[in-house]
């Protein structure tokens, strides 16, 4: 039996807080679990808290990138939170820039990013429902 990283649902988002020194196999399992959970819940965002991680090596870095990639295809945005300064310095020196991963410093900001995205999506579907004529002309017609 492999340990699993728990995935919590909070509103439109999934929250993963990595609290253990991550083994490669557990990281791969997390990727699969998250993909399934995004589809099951229709989550719009994934927040990954790595503040407890003392290191991020190329394997874990690649895992973060691929989770972000998978989530994007499944219509969810991934935000990585709480990277330690020493980890950031080491990652860049290692040559891993995580360009495709959105990072923020606090969980609050992560949820704000995802809320913005959800509100944007909600607004769009509202526009669709109402039909373009009934919405303020300045907002839509051009």
């Amino acid at each position, binding site marked *: 039996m492999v340990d699993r990283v728990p995935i919590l649902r909070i509103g439109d988002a999934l929250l993963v807080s990595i609290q253990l*020194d991550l083994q490669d196999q*557990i990281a791969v399992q997390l990727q699969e679990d998250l993909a399934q959970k995004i589809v099951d819940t229709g989550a719009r965002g994934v927040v990954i808290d790595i503040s407890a991680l*003392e*290191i991020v090596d*190329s394997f874990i870095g690649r895992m973060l990138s691929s989770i972000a990639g998978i989530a994007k295809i499944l219509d969810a945005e991934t935000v990585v939170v709480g990277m330690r300064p020493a*980890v950031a310095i080491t990652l860049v*020196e290692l040559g*891993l820039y995580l360009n495709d991963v959105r990072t923020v410093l606090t969980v609050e900001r992560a949820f704000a990013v995802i809320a913005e995205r959800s509100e944007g999506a909600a607004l769009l579907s509202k526009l669709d429902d109402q039909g373009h004529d009934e919405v303020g002309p300045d907002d839509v017609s051009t």
Partner: protein
Amino acid sequence: MTDATIDVEASERLEIKADADVVKVRQATRNLATKAALSLVEQTKVVTAASELARNTLVHGGGGTARIDLVRSNQRGGVRATFTDHGPGIPDVNLALTEGYTTGTGLGLGLSGSRRLVDEFDLRTEVGGGTEVTILKWGR
């Protein structure tokens, strides 16, 4: 790295046979790096390099051993880690050390990246005979 002026104050030897052993190598390296009074950034760099090399030993070398030493030279503390496997060896070392070169499973940052993270890096390999990589990181 056989410099005679380097004293070994403590040593830990670990088998690398599974994922969990890579984590143990990280913990042992962190432990000795703390004792060597490396700064937090230096600790993080050497632990990350050790993690990359331990994974290489497991994935490419088919398993092996790690020896981690707390070393001292002229009052300066440091951590030295040696990874040994009896796997297939590396046919083209220069190619293997090229950033971005990969045999297909990773990002190709393991060897080139870990070399950048440490002060000394030594690689000995023989096709069919295995690979030994030694890294050393000094405190400031």
